[in-house]
């Protein structure tokens, strides 16, 4: 057997797993294999359980729209800047095609969906990043939409909730992606200086420039169980230090243990938790 055919079945298997993991919608007729416990789950069961494995509690990734539906009161979400798209200002190789493919895959125009909604009948600005759009990479539109969302919240004295998932700053927009870290942080700071509440919900994975900016800037930082959160990715850390990584390294529970996350919250409890925290900050009911 030559090397290529020897490797191929394994690669195909890995490929099929990762596509099931990131698939935004799974038809009812399908079975899904849990990548954590390897049990076969009925797709409709998985969907009903908010994409959490019924056997081992593994939290599958969730599309931005599914998450908005999970967290906001029914039909309360009004989207901001839904048509804003990137210009490919650097004319970066294959970027236009990549954007096109990401739009196709995710059904979104960019890697974050922003808007306002109510949670427990309280007004909030909600930003949800999309794992299906270039794994939530932060380009200039991502930064602009988040900045505008914070500016809107500051002007209207509303709390902000951001659900993060991101591989970091988007290299195809070069330095301008990096600048979004500063831009969003500035908007978060102005919101904070007005005495307004910002809650971060970290989901798997949140790394790089998003961790080193708005993901870590919340007054309260929540995370889903077992979410990967860090600045440098685990592979980079391993390659740089030539050391075996400690058990659970950069997982939400580990990071909480180190003092950087306020609470790890099960997905089924997320909406209730947010609504309780909003009440504790005297967020007014929608009138």
């Amino acid at each position: 057997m030559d090397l290529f055919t020897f490797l191929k079945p394994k690669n195909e298997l890995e490929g099929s797993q990762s596509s099931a993991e990131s698939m935004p919608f799974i038809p009812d007729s399908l079975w899904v294999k849990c990548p954590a416990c390897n049990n076969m789950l009925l797709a409709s069961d998985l969907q009903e359980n908010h994409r959490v494995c019924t056997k081992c509690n593994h939290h599958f990734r969730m599309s931005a729209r599914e998450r908005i539906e999970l967290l906001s009161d029914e039909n309360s979400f009004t989207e901001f800047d839904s048509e804003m798209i990137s210009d490919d200002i650097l004319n970066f190789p294959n970027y236009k095609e990549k954007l096109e493919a990401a739009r196709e895959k995710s059904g979104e125009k960019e890697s974050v969906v922003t808007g306002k909604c109510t949670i427990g009948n309280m007004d909030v600005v909600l930003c949800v990043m999309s794992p299906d759009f270039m794994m939530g990479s932060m380009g200039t539109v991502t930064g602009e939409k988040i900045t505008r969302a914070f500016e809107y919240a500051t002007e209207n004295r509303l709390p902000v909730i951001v659900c993060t998932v991101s591989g970091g700053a988007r290299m195809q927009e070069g330095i301008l992606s990096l600048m979004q870290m500063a831009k969003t942080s500035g908007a978060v700071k102005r919101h904070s200086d007005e005495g307004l509440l910002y809650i971060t919900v970290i989901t798997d994975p949140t790394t790089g420039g998003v961790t080193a900016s708005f993901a870590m800037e919340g007054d309260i930082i929540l995370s889903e169980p077992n979410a990967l959160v860090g600045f440098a990715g685990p592979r980079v850390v391993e390659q740089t230090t030539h050391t075996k990584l400690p058990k659970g390294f950069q997982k939400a529970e580990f990071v909480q243990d180190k003092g950087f996350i306020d609470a790890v919250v099960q997905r089924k409890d997320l909406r209730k938790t947010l609504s309780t925290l909003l009440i504790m900050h005297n967020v007014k009911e929608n009138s």
Partner: protein
Amino acid sequence: MSAYDKVQAARNSKRLTAVDYIGKMFGSSFFELHGDRRFGDDKAIVAGLAMLYDVPITVIAIEKGRNTKERMARNFGSANPEGYRKALRLMKQAEKFHRPVLCLVDTSGAYPGIDAEERGQGLAIAENLMEMMTLKTPILSVLIGEGGSGGALALAVADEVWMLEDSIYSVISPEGCASILWKDSTKAPEASECLKLTSHDLFDLGVVERIIREPSNIDDRKMFEGLKMLIARTFDKNLALDTERLLQTRYARFRRLGSHS
């Protein structure tokens, strides 16, 4: 010079480092201040007080080291969280005494170590970005060599950002970019072109306000004196602004960066 030539020039081990600039511009007036008051003293960050002519300023610099021994001690200019926290502590101190802050940036990136992650590298950078945006005293950042991603940005949220002509500033290393794009890190020269990381590219993108001529060597007094005068003039201008105006201008500087349809 191609973009990759600039990358190599910015990384050249014979290139002048932050302590050279501090020595040439501030001489014996520089008084180093150590430690973050939380965990330790990160040698990758050199910081302290200095006299800029008759004005006391706070200087915060990332130092790579000038020889192997120094480079080891400085962790090759890759700061840990306590380095960024030392920087923030001294920025807050500068704010208290209304001293301008000069940052000299030269790093391949924040250190991606196990300990760094465990001590909150992401948070340390994020806090600097937030606090620098509203720091009530003028800030000026000069990239003197490598500007590696978030680790550089953590000292470059400023009223103005300048670059030495052969320095670079990038969201990712060209090698990292090439290995993601083409699964081949030897294509770093091509990636360097795509990333638009040279001083002239970044000037055109509106990310830096000024390009500074390279010193021909460490004895190029004219260059160091010229740079010093430019810094003094910029601080003078910004010290004259009322705080609200200063911070509004700083916010607007970053607010406009990006492009969309």
